[in-house]
């Protein structure tokens, strides 16, 4: 269920607000969308900025991916984790919308060692089936 979200954030990329205990157990939240395609289970975690009272997705990437993986029974080998930083409606360009794929190592129990690489919005759209059919 979507609750307390900023209506300005592009909701194409989240279906629900996911509450989690962040760093030092601080109540935290992100937007969440999970889409299964043929190869992956794509998890998009959206930064909610002022709507998130606690730890950012980026600061908590590996534990958050682990939490979501267990909560939604996602095979760690198939999870593709994407951080979505939505457009903050600012004239400052570094507040524009961006997407980052995060690659982790799996230590048998949890994700560790996040590595980010920016990916195009069009690629995200393809992965979650939003891309227009040609």
């Amino acid at each position, binding site marked *: 269920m979507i609750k307390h979200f900023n209506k300005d954030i592009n909701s194409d990329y989240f279906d629900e607000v996911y509450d989690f205990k962040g760093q*030092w157990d601080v109540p935290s939240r992100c937007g969440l969308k999970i889409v299964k395609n043929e190869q992956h289970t794509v998890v998009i975690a959206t930064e909610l*900025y002022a709507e998130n009272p606690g730890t*950012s997705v*980026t*600061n908590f990437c590996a534990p958050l991916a682990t939490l979501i993986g267990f909560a939604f029974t996602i095979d760690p080998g198939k999870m593709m984790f994407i951080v979505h*930083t939505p457009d903050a409606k600012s004239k400052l360009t*570094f507040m524009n919308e961006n997407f*980052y794929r995060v690659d982790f190592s799996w230590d048998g129990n949890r994700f560790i060692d996040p590595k*980010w690489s920016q990916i195009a919005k069009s690629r995200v759209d393809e992965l979650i089936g939003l891309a227009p059919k040609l």
Partner: protein
Amino acid sequence: MKFKLIYPKWEKLEGQTTFNLPPHGPVVMAAALPAYVHIEFVDENVDELTFDDDADFIGISMMLTGQIKRGWQIASEYHKRGKKVIFGGISTMLHAEETLEYADSIFLGEAEGRLEKVFDDFRNDKLQKVYNYLAVHPDINTIGPARRDILNKEKYYHKGVRMVDLFHASRGCKYNCYPCAVAYLGGKCFRPRPVDRVVEELATIDNNRLFIVDNSLAQDKQWELDLFREMIPFKKNWCSHPIENDDEVLDLAAQAGAWFVYQAVFDTSDYIRDRIKRYHDHGIAVEGTILLGTDDHTEDDIKRLIDFLLEINLDLAEFTVLTPFPHTKAYDDLLRQNRIIDHDWNNFNAGKVVIQPKHMTPERLQELYHYAWDTFYKDESQSEKMFKLFRTVIMKEIANGTYKPVREELANRSFGKKVNR
């Protein structure tokens, strides 16, 4: 029980006038100590720190990222002597995991109502590794006057002139600014102290010049109006971060003693021009705080910005380079983009470039940082501009009968050290 609270020194920025202000975090923390605790406070920026003493328990209070490595060193020295060390303060919260490696205990969050347990645990040899109060803030009504009596006040004079005292009227911040961690530290909800509690604290401060350290006062207009109205009778002069851009508020602020504000100047827009003019129209001076090296800054933008600062007659300007402190959006963005190029926390002082800028080399940004300082203060030095600002406050104090002359016996000392007059 004797508790020794230490505020580690840090390397001051090259080429800039150094002022040591009495720290705020330690005096707020001290006010929350149980009555049986005898506190000795050492600010290593002005006091000598010795390690062989009879303290039962050691506290290290850290505000800046640039203090943490020194804080860790101090803890190691005390561990060699068999003492237990607890860390607290803003940069302990920002660097909690790393600091834990050097600590017997870390305290995360705000101290009010929580230190009885910490000291009970210590006395019963049950000190916990982490006291985590990050998620739950104390009732803002319970926050009383800070304990400035722990400060060695004579050390906060420069050539006989007393530095401002720091105090706070609110906690938390509803803004979520790109380079700032306050929303993480104090919460994203603005928590103004009741005006009567602020007034109660003001009455305890014997200094006529203050620095209201709140992140931004411009968060609740009615509270600001009430606060400034109640501050007028104290006849203090003060500096602060931004005040509401509203004539009614600015008028009352000026009557309440607003001396100068730190105002971020992030572009060359008419909004900024008008904002500065409005402060000036109310007799409030402005120290611009200018962040260089964001992803929107090319070399030309930076040069144009500096020309603009001179055009709008800023009273003072303070330049910094974008520094990604943990728990900020700046940190998150630059981490994801693998653009943090220096991981030595001592260099996170906002004067050294630790990132790969988008539009230039790190070396070029460093040069432009120095260019900004040099160009802004080319015709009138920082000391001269500061003196002008200082003169305005003296005139105000003479006019309202609160002026206290320079202390002649401290005229040849600067922050406790001997200097030429």
